[in-house]
């Protein structure tokens, strides 16, 4: 009888010898977590230099933007309150809803500075929620794009179809509430032509609104929301509609009305004969007429310039503060007395 003297452990070691290699994990930088890495440390030098760099970049940009914005000449005229006949100031809604009352109104604008052409004419609405959920989705892009899809009016509630069921083109609340004030400009007695082409983004014109889609049954209902469209012109040429239908992000928005392609001189008096058709009185919205030139940056907007300048300035300031702190209350890098276990009172 052989009473094996091999202990359990040795026996096991022998048995596992051939397996051993297979169990040993293979070395790789990934599994051993030794991937080469850069280890940035946010030292005060870094903080100060980052601030300085930001300052150096931002201040010039800010100055340039502010300069561009300041170059822009802008005339803003609120006319919704002024254009109501004296006797109807207490009943604005009745005034605007009454078709028999003439909506014409004359405004006189003084040009504060020379304005180089093109001068952009905007209308600005206030408290008008073009971004309301019910409003935004009330359109059908397929219908706008494709003449064959005139019947596709899903999402257009409640301006889908006429009472007898034929589809409205363009359907939906957005189109239905098309802005319909009109402006006519004269300088002295010389009329200023407003060019209403090219006021929409080209991509909208070319792709979103079909060149063979014509308005149908538009504003035929009992309730008239706003402007009407020329049924003979394809949608792609109805630029007012195209501009209107690019719904604004905020309840206060400007939309481009047209371009005046004549230079205006300082102190010129512009006479505006406008048709005050659009009802903003119901929801007490303001209406403004804006004449503005542009710079490379666009219209008059100091926000970016001020923003850049502020941040740039703040960064310079912070860089200075950190530098002062750095000298007043320096901390040696890697000062072991900051370690929690070296600080007093950090006993058990």
């Amino acid at each position: 009888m052989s009473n094996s003297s091999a202990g359990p452990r040795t026996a096991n070691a022998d048995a596992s010898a051939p397996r051993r290699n297979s169990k040993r994990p293979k070395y790789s930088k990934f599994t051993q977590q030794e991937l080469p890495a850069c280890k940035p440390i946010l030292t005060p030098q870094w903080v100060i230099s980052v601030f300085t760099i930001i300052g150096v970049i931002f201040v010039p940009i800010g100055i340039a933007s502010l300069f561009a914005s300041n170059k822009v000449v802008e005339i803003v005229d609120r006319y919704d309150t002024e254009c109501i006949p004296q006797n109807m100031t207490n009943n604005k809604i009745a005034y605007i809803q009454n078709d028999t009352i003439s909506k014409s109104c004359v405004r006189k604008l003084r040009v504060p500075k020379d304005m180089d052409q093109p001068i952009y004419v905007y209308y600005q609405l206030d408290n008008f929620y073009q971004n309301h959920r019910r409003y935004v989705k009330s359109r059908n892009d397929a219908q706008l794009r494709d003449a064959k899809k005139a019947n596709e009016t899903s999402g257009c509630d409640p301006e889908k179809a006429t009472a007898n069921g034929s589809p409205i083109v363009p359907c939906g609340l957005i189109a239905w509430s098309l802005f319909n004030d009109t402006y006519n400009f004269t300088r002295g007695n010389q009329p200023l032509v407003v060019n209403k082409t090219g006021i929409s983004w080209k991509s909208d014109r070319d792709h979103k609104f079909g060149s063979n889609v014509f308005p149908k049954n538009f504003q035929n209902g009992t309730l008239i929301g706003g402007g009407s469209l020329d049924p003979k012109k394809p949608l792609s040429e109805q630029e007012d509609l195209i501009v209107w239908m690019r719904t604004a992000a905020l309840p206060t928005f400007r939309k481009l009305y047209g371009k005046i392609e004549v230079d205006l001189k300082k102190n010129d008096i512009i006479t505006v004969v406008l048709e005050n058709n659009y009802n903003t009185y119901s929801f007490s919205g303001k209406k403004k007429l804006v004449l503005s030139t542009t710079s490379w940056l666009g219209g008059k907007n100091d926000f970016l310039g001020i923003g850049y300048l502020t941040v740039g300035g703040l960064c310079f300031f912070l860089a200075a503060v950190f530098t002062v702190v750095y000298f007043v209350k320096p901390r040696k890098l890697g000062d072991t007395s900051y370690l929690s276990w070296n600080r007093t009172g950090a006993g058990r």
Partner: protein
Amino acid sequence: MSGIWERARASRTLRGRDSFGSRDITSNGDRSSRTVRLGRVQPQAPSNRTIYCNDREANLPVRYKGNSISTTKYNVLTFLPKGLFEQFRRVANLYFLMISILSTTPISPVHPITNVVPLSLVLLVSLIKEAFEDWKRFQNDKSINNAPVDVLQDQKWETIPWKKLQVGDLVRVKQDGFFPADLLFLASSNPDGVCYIETANLDGETNLKIRKALERTWDYFLPEKAAEFKGEIQCEQPNNSLYTFTGNLIIENQTLPLSPNQILLRGCSLRNTEYIVGTVLFTGHETKVMMNSMNVPSKRSTLERKLDKLILALFGCLFFMCLIGAIGSGVFINRKYYYLGLSGDVEDQFNPNNRFVVTILTMFTLITLYSTIIPISLYVSIEMIKFIQCTQFINKDLNMYHIESGTPALARTSNLNEELGQVEYIFSDKTGTLTRNMMEFFKCSIGGEIYGNGVTEIERGNLERKGLKLDGANGSATAIREKGFNFDDARLMRGAWRNETNPEFCKEFFRCLAICHTVLPEGEESLEKIVYQAASPDEAALVTAAKNFGFFFYRRTPTTVIVRESHVDKMGKIQDVAYEILNVLEFNSTRKRQSVVCRYPNGRLVLYCKGADTVIYERLAYGNEDIKRITREHLEQFGSAGLRTLCLAYRELSSELYEKWNEKFILAKSSLREREKKLDEVAELIEKELVLIGCTAIEDKLQEGVPSCIETLSRAGIKIWVLTGDKMETAINIAYACNLINNDMKQFFISSDTDAVREVEDKGDPVEISRFMRDLVKKDLERCLEEAQHFFHTVTGPKLALVIDGKCLMYALDPNLRVNLLKLSLNCASVVCCRVSPLQKAQVTSLVKKGARKITLSIGDGANDVSMIQAAHVGVGISGLEGMQAVMASDFAIAQFRFLTDLLLVHGRWSYLRLCKVITYFFYKNLTFTLTQFWFTFQTGFSGQRFYDDWFQSLYNVIFTALPVIIVGLFDKDVSASLSKQNPELYKEGIRNMFFKWRVVAVWAFFSFYQSLVFYYFTAAASHNGQNSSGKTFGLWDVSTMAFTCVVVTVNLRLLMACNSITKWHSLSISGSILAWFLFIFIYSAVMTPYDRQENVYFVIYVLMSTFYFYLTLLHIPVVALLGDFIYLGLQRWFAPYDYQIIQEIHRNDLEDNRSSALLEIGNHLTQNEARSYAIAQLPRETSKHTGFAFDSPGYESFFASQQGVFVPQKPWDVARRASMRQQPRTHRS
């Protein structure tokens, strides 16, 4: 065939009337009432089972379960429904399911895809992971099920896979093989029908246990004979009690009772036995080990539970936002906004006539709109990160790969990685975890002279702490190493001791070692091949030492011990000396000593005694004070070096004295009442006037690197408790050896091992005992607490240590005393609980877990640690040895205790840091995104109009911001692994939960609030004019695309700012995400699809990019948004740096050190002798109480089993008796 059927039926009906169960249970009643139970014991079925051995047909009608096991969660059919069900049990997933359903209704502002796409992606990833894990389980089962086993078929052993095994089969298991099922042991290749088994898989005990077959069945050994075996077994139904078994074997109308002694459980392995034959009792899932493998309750990490609170807070925030919006919408809606078409028939949501309904419906609208505030991909990202951390980092860490056993670390669950970074309390088992359970003779002191040059681990550790480096090689050329012997001193080896100053002392010393023991030699009687079977490894080590000193004990007969003494050679032949053993005075825990009376061949009568220094010194003869004093010094020296000491002494006896005493001894031995006590008293009469020879020092071999690991962990602020079943001396000794306790500490002992307790216990009144114990423990606790109070508030005071034994612990865990125990123990740097049962281990663990609300980790290797492993937050099993039970219950398995350093300080800490970062970042990015949406709501008349396009919103979480955060969760590294280990204090940041406090979350929330304002108002403010030189204006989608671009860019850059280290993957993923957004929008806005999509964003990016506004804003907004964070980070680092930041700064100029040990090599190199003398010089000189006595007495080896009274472990006498049986010729087998 029909005959068999008849018989089966007959026996069944017979059994119905037979009240077998009750009969057998009464005979075992006292046993079964005290069962060790692992987990819940299933109620036993009332009936019993009858098994026809070696007769498959007869067993057929009962339809026993097969032996194949399956631990998978799903199969092909159930995978989808069950897996989905599991997924939707998560609140986040359920929430998104509801949101998705909600978003198909008209009240939703967003298209269903917005929520369906992320949800399906998340579900897909989770399901793939589940499937993968289940597949692995399936593979594992398959390999087990297909392991081969020999089964008797047609008088031959046939090899079949395990799964084909059936109840009643006769199987043959070879040496070192595992039992494939629960077997009834029939016959063994050993002559006396015994076999040795190792139950490491069940209870972690690596010592061998003896099982003995019924004598009646010994013959069924060879296949031809075994084929004749036709027995019928009636036994209990399968249950999960490991230590009980009741049943009868009916063989040829003879009923033989079966006991656990004949049962071989699945999972155990056969040792030191060529092979055995057994019959299958329970198979597959009905085996005891399988019934014990309870469903491990899945643990969730504390961080995740805190995350739930964060999610809850987000829900609160969501509700609040929706409420504001909903009320706003109710107020806003008005017919005056005629352009909204509100006159006439309007759907409920916008009907101004019923503002209340509008409010309610808008509430739902907004919930769908703001659903992004709950980070849907968070859970799946965390899961992915943790999964990769486990499978790629932890499992493949070469630093945690144990070369000797070829075992890599194994993360068995991927839920708890970050929990590893917050552990404050470690509960460790002793045997097999801290120690190797290998005793090695290391040093000795003979007649006042110290021998042995070794340096123990603890000394080495002390030296290294002082900056000295010892040479790795431990010992000179003369050193001899074998199992149980690690001694290096030329003065004693090869007979050189004869030239020492005190050769007579040496001779007695060696004789004492060779004679005074109960060891049984086995195997060939040669120096190299002999194997000592000892009840305790200490004894084996001592006998091995004697062998190496030239006193080779090689044979034991019932009355003699034969020693081959090389120092006396007669005519070149080594002399064999036969010492007649007259009496053996047994070792037990009260006596703490063991004596042997022997007669030399020349008639000299000597009593050799070995035992604890305290008991030996009490019994020494007068005189030789120098040796006593010096030996005591040596004892203390050994003790503080963590060695286990025994004193050796002898006494010359005159024959008159002996004879007189022997009469009393025989009387005592044959007394029927209180035999043990009387024996003790008689022993007392002769064990006196001893002459001290010296002492031995045995190293209870610690696992490699344990002291330094413990030292590192305690520097990391982790407190280590040792919970062991060993007796107090052993436990204290190990605590010394591990540096958990040292002489500088204030030590508190609460022990039941006092005379007072013994006295009360002797009276045997259980009520009285418990009352007395309770009072004692209460008093002790109060006393200790009072003393300890003095040290609580001093910073420089000594550290505290508490030692408590299991009996006292039982009372201390009483609800009334628990508070005091907790108060005391939490203030102790280390706590040692000895003689604790598995249940108490779990109780202590939950005491700290629940009572103190600290994060706990349990580490152990045996089944007695299972309950503790499961009770703790994190359970770690020691793998690589045979024991699997602990590993099966654990969350992480490592091969060595020292790997805890890597597991906790490196992997745990990183995981914690990374996950904190991931979670807070997720929180930030979703909150920021949703808040921009919220601000927009205010300017849309609270209508719930979406700011972003559907696809932007749905892809935000899953594409544009998904990958970088995962990369950070995988690769972010504040300091390198070696620095983590060099500065263990860094770990405290995790214990204090520095990176996921509400304060940290609040900072993120604040900046997210700030940034969202910047994103929304800055883009909006800059947008309402003509935007280019041709005066055209932007619409809603231009502005929102602009804002979204800024959000994506900023959020990704913010992550970069949060990184501690930036690998190429970071830069790739971050730039990739930003590029992915641009790529997406370029394509998305260029394509016009015929599907149900309003061409809102058609061409917007091109329109945007044609303006200067776009570029200026894109530069401006991220800078403004990140400026706040940047200032915060700068200030925080400058004025209140985190510890890791300081460490980063210290090592900022280090080269990329890849964990090379180079850094550790600093230090003075000493020559070996210098080092040794220095080591000795460094040893504590002051008198201490600790002298290191420890000895594993047989009674404690299987403490728990013996407590049951079920399986009585062998006594030393059994070993001796078996030795005598051995000599008998084998008659029962040819």
